[in-house]
């Protein structure tokens, strides 16, 4: 009888274990089909890449999840009438027209439609291959007149610069998309980077250090400095690696000499530390600088500068920094000269081997989540004056 009870108890234990084991393994159905429909990478293979691309690394473009336009800037003499881009897609996704199919890019962009493995989702991409003249300009003008609500969400503003031919470019980036992760209810004008209709001359851009709300407090990321920079913002790592989400710099084919513009800066009342505690006696400071750097390392890898090395990288060639952004509510001019650390290589310059980053931030230590909520830096009429060798 005692033996029986032992066996019975054992049976119950086995039964319970079986239930748990069943839950843990055999109930899992077949792996669900993928629901993503991205082009992740576009690669262009051509017979003589050195005549086609400015840089060897230009043949491959990694596509951000938020991008739906992919542009290859190639040498002005390049033949783009029969190219076969190879597309890397989300797992299981299909694309029409097919990856590797041949198209004439001289007639404008080719539109690709990607369908997810489960067939429920689609994305459309425009791929451009644009023969690009290396232009030589005396002055680049950034007036912040062209802004609009971001197309997909309509939640925050983005800016366009005016290109030499009068069309609009996407050289300016902000971290507004990252702010949306923590503050989904914020209105467009409550984001860190907003337009100011009446600036020094027409519209200006306004950067304000903002509270990141309950999500920010939970994550010890209590504030978001307003920022605006030449480059791209990588939303993918905004949460996991924020200092690398700001990719500073765009290819630049002139020698910058002077960096000028107009600003107002009003520091917020109380600087707070990483934990949100006030730092008594400290006044918030803003960032206004431009960095000119080599965009490939010695091993030939493409490089952009990030939040943690934009002022310290070995690849920096010249810096123009407004040392002290004095608080003022009046529009105040700045004019700083680029301090060169090394000679500019003409050949490399012509091959788009240098990049330029212009960076504005309403709290200098915002990358470490230190600053004063309410600090406000407005910027207008930015000029980049270039010099040419005689």
């Amino acid at each position, binding site marked *: 009888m005692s033996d029986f009870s032992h066996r*019975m108890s054992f049976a*119950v234990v086995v039964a319970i274990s079986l239930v748990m084991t069943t839950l*843990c393994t055999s109930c899992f159905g077949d792996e669900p089909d993928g*629901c993503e429909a991205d082009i992740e990478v576009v690669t262009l293979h051509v017979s003589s890449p050195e005549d086609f691309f400015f840089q060897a690394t230009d043949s491959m473009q990694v596509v951000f999840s938020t991008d739906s336009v992919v542009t290859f800037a190639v040498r002005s003499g390049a033949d783009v009438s029969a190219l076969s881009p190879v597309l890397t897609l989300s797992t299981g996704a299909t694309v029409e027209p097919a990856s590797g199919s041949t198209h004439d890019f001289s007639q404008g962009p080719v539109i690709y439609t990607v369908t997810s493995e489960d067939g429920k989702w689609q994305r459309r991409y425009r791929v451009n291959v644009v023969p690009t003249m290396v232009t030589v300009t005396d002055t680049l003008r950034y007036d912040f007149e062209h802004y609009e609500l971001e197309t997909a969400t309509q939640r925050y503003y983005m800016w366009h610069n005016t290109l030499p031919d009068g069309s609009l470019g996407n050289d300016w980036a902000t971290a507004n998309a990252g702010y949306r992760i*923590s503050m*989904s209810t914020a209105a467009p004008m409550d984001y860190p980077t907003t337009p100011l209709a009446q600036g020094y001359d027409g519209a200006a851009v306004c950067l304000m250090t903002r509270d990141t709300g309950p999500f920010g407090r939970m994550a010890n990321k209590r504030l978001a400095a307003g920022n605006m920079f030449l480059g791209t913002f990588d*939303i993918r790592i905004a949460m*996991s690696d924020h200092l690398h989400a700001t990719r500073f710099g765009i290819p630049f084919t002139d020698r910058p000499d002077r960096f000028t513009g107009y600003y107002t800066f009003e520091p917020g009342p109380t600087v707070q530390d990483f934990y949100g505690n006030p730092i008594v006696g400290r006044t918030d400071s803003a960032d206004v600088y431009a960095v000119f750097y080599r965009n490939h390392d010695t091993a030939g890898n493409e490089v952009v500068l990030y939040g943690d090395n934009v002022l310290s990288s070995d690849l920096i060639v010249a810096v123009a920094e407004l040392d002290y952004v004095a608080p003022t509510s009046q529009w105040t001019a700045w004019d700083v000269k680029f301090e060169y650390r090394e000679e500019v290589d003409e050949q490399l310059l012509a091959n788009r081997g240098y990049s330029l980053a212009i960076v504005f931030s309403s709290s200098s230590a915002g990358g470490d989540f230190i600053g004063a909520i309410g600090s406000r830096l407005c910027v207008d009429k930015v000029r980049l004056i270039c010099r040419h060798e005689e």
Partner: protein
Amino acid sequence: MFLAVMALGVNASVLDSIRFDARLGYALGGTIPTHIGKEIRGINSYYPGFNFTVAAEVSYPLSQHWSLHSGLRFELGGMDADSRVKNYDIEVVRGDESLSGIFNGNVRIKSAQRRITLPIQAMYSINDKWNVRGGVFMGWLTNRRFWGWAYDGYLREGTPVGPKIEMGTEPGDRGDFDFDANMRHMQWGIDFGVDCRIWRRWGAFAELTYGLSNIFKSDFHSVQPLRPLYGTLGIVYRIK
């Protein structure tokens, strides 16, 4: 008057025949999805919490073999489950702010509850040694916690074609959630047990409890419906 005396007489004999038990058990289990979807690809780890049950129970005989069994149980429940998911719908809410979308990666879920339960069971005594029981229970949560995080993966914000946001492992880099306030106070379900008298007043028991109510309120959709399921093993002492 006669009836009253009769009633008292009956009550006295009823009281004599009622059996009182005390139980101490340890439960293994947790909350499980009502249906394990294809979205859950595997369990990385599972730890049952510190799940003790203390109960005082009564059995009221109805016939030679059948009794009505009830009582009060005080249960500590909890779990810590870590699973791998694909195309998993998540929504993280803090105050008025929310972040939702389709997550691919790992999800850690922890829960802890304190529950007072009233079981009502029919008990069948096979012989002097063995009893089997089955019935329903009502539970009231006096303390409830449900929290966790999505980590080492990425979220497609909003829809599968929305922005891709990577989530890391550390607090602040991952997606934390906390759904204490979304849990129901009341739970109900079914349970089955078997008791075995081993020595004098001492015996062993095993019980399987399955909640038929979602542990979350009906207007809560951030996590798929979960129900309690656990097995309890323990000792029982016949008080009278």
